[in-house]
């Protein structure tokens, strides 16, 4: 992809990511995160990760974010911060933003100085369903099985936490 496309996408990504962080309304924050995740999926497509891009939209944008929205609506959260903002945290906030800016600039400068050789043209079918599936079920069979245990623990933990005791 051309550098113009990259910069357009990158700008959109940064803007939506900033919206997630600064927007006072949690629902709009969540929607901005959905947009960010979707744009990241587009980046994945450009990087040749077709399967991962589709999964990103299904799992992240389509499932995890729905859960976030559910919780926001469940707890009936409205614009928060107005009161939290008043409490003399201004200095800390400014410091955090400066620190974040320095971190981003330093990391970016570091990465941009590394002379990566141009990546070789990927083999046919790279990042497609077959290649990811083969790697997943042959080379990563054990982590795959462990994943199921992780999910089982998540289910049990959630039910225990969320269900009111013996009601």
């Amino acid at each position: 992809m051309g550098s113009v496309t990259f910069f357009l996408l990158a700008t959109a990504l940064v803007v939506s990511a900033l919206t997630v962080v600064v927007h006072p309304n949690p629902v709009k924050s969540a929607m901005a995160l959905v947009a960010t995740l979707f744009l990241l999926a587009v980046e994945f497509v450009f990087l040749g990760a077709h399967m991962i891009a589709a999964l990103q939209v299904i799992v992240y944008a389509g499932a995890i974010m729905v859960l976030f929205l559910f919780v926001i609506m469940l707890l009936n959260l409205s614009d928060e911060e107005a009161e939290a903002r008043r409490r003399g945290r201004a200095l800390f906030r400014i410091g955090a933003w400066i620190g974040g800016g320095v971190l981003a600039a330093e990391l970016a400068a570091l990465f941009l100085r590394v002379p990566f050789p141009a990546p070789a043209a990927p083999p046919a079918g790279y990042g497609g369903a077959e290649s990811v599936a083969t790697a997943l079920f042959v080379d990563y069979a054990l982590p795959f099985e462990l994943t199921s245990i992780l999910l089982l623990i998540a289910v049990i933990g959630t039910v225990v936490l969320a269900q009111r005791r013996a009601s």
Partner: protein
Amino acid sequence: MLDQYLGVIITFGFAAVIVGIMCGASMILGVHHPGPVKQQVFECGNPPTGPARGRFSVRFYLVAILFIVFDVEVVFLYPWAIVFRRLGVPGLVEMVVFIGVLAAGLAYVWKKGALAWD
């Protein structure tokens, strides 16, 4: 491989224009006579009382959690299904174990009554 997505991008553009026009038509073509009564939310004639955004049963949340877990499972099943013929019996065993563990989770939730709506 990228030129496959040309059609997707173009479809996104067309669909956005079509749906945008459909959603926005009334804003442009319709009349605008707002009024306090007209802008009230509809509650079968009574003036609404109290805030509209109450809290909800935690059951809906449990459904969403189960959705996430099983969505991840489905997402693992898709790549498995396409390479299944090459994997053969080991692939079947792998997936039986995986589904078995998650089915145990489903059974637990079922037993705990998180799926019961009354």
